């Protein structure tokens, strides 16, 4: 009995220790770039990042060294300027900022609803690139009088390639545009999934719509290794009362060559998934992709 008790308490202690180790290593591993396997995760195409703020229905919290820091990256240099690379050893190769026009019939008087900034960094060995995405929404009402809302941002061109993702949340509010929004989850998928109150944080793989489905209410998404989907919540004026006008810096790291990336039509997709009952909408714009990439592949 005594013996077995000892064994039992030993086991319990071991379990506690193991849990503690897992947790602590989990926290450490959580910071920075996370791998998005080509085949997705065991039960989802997505993995969770910052789970504060109920996917934008409430105020999300900035990541810090102790909490909310899955997928999050920060460095002194990023605090100075987000044009600095998120990782040591990478240099900025090029940057492109463009206006995003809202197409008819959704556009209001001012058709320009946002500015997208597309930045690329490459490592010195010219073997890996980081694609940076940032969007700032303008207070330009749509035809229905409401402001555009971006719940998901998808980028294509990564089929067959390893992909790691991260985001940088600038913790000091900008004097003109305030705080950015966090990234709630990120997936190796083309499909953006509506997240209203009570919906699944991680969309299932089971019963997912076809992999070329852009937006779904079903709480499931199929894996598409060509696409990376960041779930966030940006609007110049959010009807749920929690307004973040710009995204964090969103990063995708993937192998590349010395050849500079090319811009391709429809490589970046912005989705309104209807979190607060908005009309579901996808806006597609050109974006930098690896040389030889095919965008229309799911």
């Amino acid at each position: 009995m005594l013996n077995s008790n000892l064994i039992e308490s030993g086991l319990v202690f071991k379990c506690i220790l193991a849990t503690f180790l897992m947790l602590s290593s989990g926290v450490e591993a959580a910071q920075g770039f996370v791998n998005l396997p080509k085949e997705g995760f065991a039960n989802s195409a997505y993995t969770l990042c910052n789970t504060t703020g109920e996917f934008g229905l409430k105020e999300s919290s900035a990541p810090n060294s102790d909490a909310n820091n899955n997928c999050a990256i920060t460095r002194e240099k990023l605090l100075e300027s987000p044009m600095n690379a998120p990782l040591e050893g990478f240099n900025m190769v090029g940057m492109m900022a463009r206006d995003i026009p809202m197409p008819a019939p959704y556009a209001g008087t001012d058709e320009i609803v946002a500015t997208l900034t597309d930045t690329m960094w490459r490592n010195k060995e010219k073997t890996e690139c980081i694609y940076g995405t940032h969007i700032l929404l303008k207070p330009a009402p749509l035809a229905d009088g409401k402001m555009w809302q971006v719940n998901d941002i998808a980028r294509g061109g990564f089929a067959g390639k390893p992909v790691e993702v991260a985001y940088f949340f600038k913790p000091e509010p900008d004097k003109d545009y305030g705080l950015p929004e966090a990234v709630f989850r990120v997936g190796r998928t083309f499909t953006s999934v509506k997240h209203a109150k009570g919906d699944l944080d991680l969309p299932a793989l089971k019963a997912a719509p076809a992999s070329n489905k852009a937006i779904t209410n079903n709480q499931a998404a199929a894996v598409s290794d060509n696409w990376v989907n960041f779930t966030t919540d940006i609007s110049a004026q959010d009807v749920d009362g929690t307004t973040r006008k710009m995204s964090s810096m969103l990063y995708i790291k993937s192998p590349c060559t010395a050849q500079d990336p090319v811009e391709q039509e429809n490589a970046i997709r912005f989705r309104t998934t209807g979190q607060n009952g908005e009309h579901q909408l996808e806006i597609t714009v050109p974006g930098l992709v690896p040389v030889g990439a095919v965008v229309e592949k799911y």
Partner: protein
Amino acid sequence: MKKVKLKLAVLGAFSVLSAQALATGLVSLPTAGVAVAAGANQPAGTTGWELCNTTGNYGSGTYTPPDAGANNICAVFPGGGRSLTTSPVSTIATAVTVATSTPITANGETLGSLGQRTWRNATNTQCVFAKYIDFATTGTYDYNPDLAGSQRFEANDVVLGGFSTTPTVSAGYYHTTTTDSPIFRVGRSFTSVQMQPELDALGNPTNNPFTGFVHRPINGPTVPAAGTEINGVGQTLSPSTIVPTAAQQTSAIRTNWVDFMLDNTGGVDEDGTTAKNTPVMYVQANCTGLVASTANTIRIRQTGQETQPWVTILASGQTRVGANANF
């Protein structure tokens, strides 16, 4: 023989005279381009580019602003400064819009403000589109992370679109004040072409481009693909050491676009000559007397005159109704 020589001499004198007389005013940029002869830093061929202010070596050195007497090719002096009160073309002087100013942002930071106004003629067949950019001096984002310290965006070219229906556009600029740079060259081109200066023994720019860089890029034999924002050698951590190939200094004539080469930054220019604002840039082109805001018809480019990486900022511009940003 003597007769021919005399004729040539007279012709030469006339063309010099007429060139001087026409020096102030918008310059013609025909769709077909013009022939250019070979010379120093200049291959022979057909070019869509005209030289404007030839002082300051395209911004690398110290330029002399235009005035009524000198350095005034492409230059106009309508008055009114940046209020855009007056059209530079007296026959195209009915304002279509009031002067507007809109912010330009990148990565969520204000980069500058864009001023615009358009005038039309009485018959609604021609417009003058005026644009200028005041670069923000308040920015903190680093547009050259590889260089020590923190550098603001440097504009080397501002390219305006929406002119595809006009066989020959006219373009020019108004140097409103000492904080403006002049326009060094203007071209019927979508692609901006990188320029770097020849350096003297002390490392200061001479009055010439570095070996291989050309004054007026020609339309061949190999031109960059349609949609190429910038042609050149790329980012150079040691500028004026890499000789571009001939193909890295060409640009196709693109009827929809006019490229103004200048040198502006809201920070401190790496070359030591800082001008924070563009001059007012004008394009006279066909229109129906109405304007629209057309996405991505303004491209503002950092092309690496010193050690900068290539950056392109796109903005919406006031254009004729029905214009587009096609290449």
